[in-house]
């Protein structure tokens, strides 16, 4: 079972520079646990005490997982999960 996970530039320090890694799991949460076992520290950048970190966008194929099931979102062989840090800021 392989799920492709596309990694943004700033998180490639955890993947030895790789833009894309593979993992497995039945849910997004399990997938991140699996990735963390080989890329230690990666999960911490994606998941906090309250679940998925607010300013990290995670997509399952073409959908934002916030509108699916967050960490409970089911994932399957052949899916592509994309991670993009939110682009945000402001005057304050």
């Amino acid at each position, binding site marked *: 079972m392989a799920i492709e996970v596309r990694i943004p530039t700033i998180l490639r320090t955890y993947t030895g520079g790789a833009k894309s890694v593979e993992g497995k799991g039945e849910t997004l949460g399990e997938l991140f646990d699996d990735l963390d076992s080989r890329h230690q520290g990666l999960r911490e950048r994606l998941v906090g005490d309250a679940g998925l970190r607010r300013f990290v966008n995670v997509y399952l194929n073409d959908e934002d997982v*916030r509108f699916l099931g967050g960490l409970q979102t089911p994932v399957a062989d052949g899916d592509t999960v994309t991670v993009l840090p939110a682009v*945000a800021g402001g005057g304050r």
Partner: protein
Amino acid sequence: MLTISSALRAKIVAHARADHPDEACGVIAGPAGSDRPERFIPMLNAERSPTFYRFDSLEQLRVWREMDERDEEPVVIYHSHTATQAYPSRTDISYASEPEAHYVLVSTREPDQAEFRSFRIVDGQVAEEEVRVAGAE
């Protein structure tokens, strides 16, 4: 140093003015590794706020995928401040996540002139850089 055409600079300023008093935001893509801003991509400010901006998550996915397909990267990430100076705020610094990008700030706090400045933000450190505007006014 940021080198940018006067036409692109004008587009950023026009976008900022048009969205005032909300913050405007967007990207200028360029060929990967070239450091040349070429393709203007104004983005929706999903916050629609005078003090905060955020790219809509699905629009960001579409734009980032498109850049990837075209072998481009985000050379400039711009946004406007509507009541404060054109300098990265604490939130700007904490969310900066493209270490190779030039972060352009425009301030629209004055009606008759726009401040336009550019910065590198890497590992929480801000460094202002010179802006070289190329081409006829």
